[in-house]
């Protein structure tokens, strides 16, 4: 690891101020990506500004029609939260599948979304549930947030403060983990809105990061059942291919995981 200066931010404003002072500053949330990358000397931030102890960034609250998960809330806290389990059990289930216990106790929702790893779990939930990402500057709709591999709508120095999830009529997540990393080789989140619209998002599969799966959305809108997906064809074009899975295999997994997600959604 290269030398760096560590700061523990006391508030969001403090974090922003510290960020402005650094030449190559980086925000640190759970550190599950940034720290390994720094240890490998693949990143050399001048300043590391730790958000994980900022009180206003931690916690989960119910709202009238959904829940708000503040950005520095850990995966473990989401997975075990009564509020989440009651309102959106599929989201708690998703959080319980991230990494391993050590990762879940350190990693945060805000860190995961800001990093936007193409195989991370949270982006699928945010996109399928139609969540809203709140930052210190604005609110961003899920559909406008994800911009490809490791790229988001966030501007330099912008901090995610919370994520608002609406409660949908149905929601389910099924994940096929990469055997080595346990990231999603393919994970599919399905949701049906009270109005009957369907949103399906797949992570881990596409060369452009998390994506909506139109053909499955259409099939499920017509008939909300696992069987409705049987006849859907997912093209392999644009899907990831690596030593863990071919594009054709991932195309298959999108279907199979979507079916299993529908079954868990009920």
């Amino acid at each position, binding site marked *: 690891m290269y030398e760096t200066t560590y700061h523990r931010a006391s508030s969001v404003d403090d974090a922003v101020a510290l960020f402005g002072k650094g030449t190559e500053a980086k925000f640190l949330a759970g550190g599950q990506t940034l720290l390994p990358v720094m240890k490998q000397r693949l990143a050399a931030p001048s300043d590391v500004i730790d958000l994980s102890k900022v009180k206003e960034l931690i916690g989960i609250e119910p709202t009238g029609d959904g829940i708000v998960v503040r950005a520095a809330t850990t995966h473990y806290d989401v997975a075990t939260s009564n509020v989440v389990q009651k309102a959106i059990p599929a989201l708690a289930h998703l959080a319980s599948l991230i990494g391993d216990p050590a990762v879940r106790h350190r990693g945060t929702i805000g860190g995961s979304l800001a990093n936007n790893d193409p195989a991370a779990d949270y982006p699928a939930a945010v996109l399928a549930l139609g969540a809203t990402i709140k930052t210190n500057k604005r609110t961003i709709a899920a559909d406008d947030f994800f911009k490809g591999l490791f790229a988001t709508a966030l501007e330099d120095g912008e901090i995610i403060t919370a994520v608002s999830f609406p409660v949908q009529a149905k929601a389910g997540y099924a994940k096929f983990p990469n*055997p080595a990393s346990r990231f999603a080789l393919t994970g599919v989140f399905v949701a049906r809105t009270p109005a009957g619209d369907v949103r399906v998002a797949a992570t881990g599969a596409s060369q452009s990061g998390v994506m909506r799966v139109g053909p499955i959305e259409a099939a499920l809108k017509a008939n909300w059942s696992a069987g409705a997906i049987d006849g859907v064809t997912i093209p392999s074009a644009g899907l990831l291919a690596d030593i*863990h*899975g071919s594009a054709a295999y991932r195309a298959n997994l999108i279907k199979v995981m979507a079916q299993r997600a529908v079954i868990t959604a009920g």
Partner: protein
Amino acid sequence: MGVEGIGASVVRKEDRRFITGQGRYVDDIKMVGMSYAHFIRSPHAHAKVKGIDSAEAMKMPGVIAVLTGQQIVDDKVGNLICGWAITSKDGSPMKMGAWPAMAPETVRFVGQAVAVVIAETKNQAKDAAEAVVVNYEELPAVPDIKAALKAGAPQLHPEAPGNVVYDWHLGDEAAVKDAFSKAANVVTLELTNNRLVPNAMEPRAAIAHYDQAEEHYTLYTTSQNPHVARLVLSAFYNIAPEHKLRVIAPDVGGGFGSKIYIYPEEMVALWASKKVNRPVKWTGDRSEAFLTDAHGRDHVSKAEMAFDKDNKIVGLRVKTHANFGAYMSLFSSAVPTYLYATLLSGQYVIPAIYAEVMGVYTNTTPVDAYRGAGRPEASYLLERMMETAARQLKVDPAELRKKNFITTFPYQTPVIMAYDIGDFHASIDAAMKAIDYAGFPARKAKAKGEGKLRGIGVSCYIEACGIAPSKAVGSLGAGVGLWESAEIRVNPVGTIEVLTGSHSHGQGHETTFCQIIAERLGVPVSQVSIVHGDTDKVQFGMGTYGSRSIAVGGTAIVKAMEKVEAKAKKIAAHALEASESDIVIENGEFKVTGTDKSIALPMVALAAYTAHNLPDGMEPGLKETAFYDPTNFTFPAGAYICELEVDPGTGKTSFVNFVAADDFGRLINPMIVEGQVHGGLAQGIGQALLEGVVYDGTGQLVTASFMDYTMPRADDLPSFQLSHTPTLCPGNPLGVKGCGEAGAIGASAAVINAITDAIGNNKLEMPATPDRVWHAIHG
């Protein structure tokens, strides 16, 4: 006989320090004035080193030296050796290219060191390494066997034309040809034995200290065999004469073969410690372990088996290509030859066997022995062949095996090995009963109704352990003898120290070896301690690998104990005024049989050291040494059966049951044996389902971290059902055979046989990842 003797599941004595974090590994050791080494490694699989510019690096804070490959060559440090000479079919010796500890001219795999920075701190060394400019001229690389053997392929070493190290054979080609010409059926099979990274929990490390006044070196290192390390460093690498070099292997966190070898980093640390006149520490990180620890396996084979009309095997023909990587590691040459082809008879009567093995250079990390070493490759080939044959001949796979089992012992195979004892029917019967083999078809049908593909797979392995008679391995080309030594020191107060040339790096010797003493003397194991891993303390030893420690090292302890007991009995008889032949040892006492007269061990020991009243002419003291050379290999064997389900939607495999029935001879500590089998099975299953090294077309290692290289985790594995069907080894007084590698040898074939049974497609290579299994089902 105490309750802590042979056969007791004594809790491991060493675990107190390991579990409480008080183990003392190389990286835990600090020396006054210690400096840190960081290696500069090639990013290319094949390149010329045109120049190394360290001027900027030398100006950086804390930098003591930047040393290069040319300097180590100029200082006449020897090239790395391969310790087993193999002769090709045509009578020519194997063709080896030179392997300097750091490359002066040419790099041949990604990760090969070209220079080292020595600095005050590790971070300073790393910072400076980035400032060293190495000018490479890239050369075309051969990343695999096929590419290496192509006409016009880039050549790695001028000494090895065509990238071929040797073209070796074993067995009777004419007899096999004759057998095939008369066969009723011939079964063919092509398969790959995937390359693995050993991944010991503790990465390799070294601390070298040069004492200028004494011209003496000390090396702390992660070694499975510190005496062999000293011998090689001294005799071949010209570091220092043996009496001026002490090698210490303290607590070592796993080896699996990868810590047998003397690597460039240890050599460089020693050499550099004199150059800079400071202790030099190097601790490898996980990335360096992936790139530079000797990899394992990597065979491509074609096999043909001939059967008569009664389904008896009449012949076996095998052609194997073995990938050695860019250089010949210490024991690499022996692995695909004398540790592989000699086991191709398996548990079966095969009248004629012919094996050809071609060893090949590629621009990849060197390959050497890894848990099982040759024997897993033989067992995997043979057991997939038996399964394939059973399907082709339309007979039950277990029945086909039983029909061909060797049942009379000793049995001379056509490929050198003479099996001393075994009962293969007992182990397969135990395994079939444990898994309810007869009930499988009903379970398969039920699973089908639930949308799952269920399969069952059998694997009957045999291995040769306790390597071996020194004379025999010497005649086959080994550069060392493979005996073991032990020294028993009974201290004046009756406590006992056992100095052994075996080395424990996870095997539990500190417990099992004490149990041998407890068994013989009836003393508690707490009264005994094991001393190992230090060339200044232990007389000499060959170390631990090849499941040899109990069969060879344990027997050396018995032999030394026999001498100690003989002398102690003389002292006791003298003290008790009895005849030596009337003295028996019970519960730590020397008793006159049939009387109530006795003298306790501490009093005998004290008498030996006070020497006030010893028998006339007896030397004082109670300390004896034995060097034991076995008369044969030992032959652990067993039957593994795996039942699993495949999810046709994802290709994912889930275990239903895994049973193992092993014959390890006598068990010293059944709990430790169980742990050894579990670990071996985890690695065998890991090879079958999860682990596999991938290089890209340019020789870059794709699986260079745990993000891409799948190590087995607890939730990847079933709960194992173990049982034992022992036949006592007649070749050693303990009746032991060794248990460390069995699981890794036998498990892979059982798993793949079960998957191919489940999916009805035999074209499946390891690791059988969900992606591969899904494609095998769906195309």
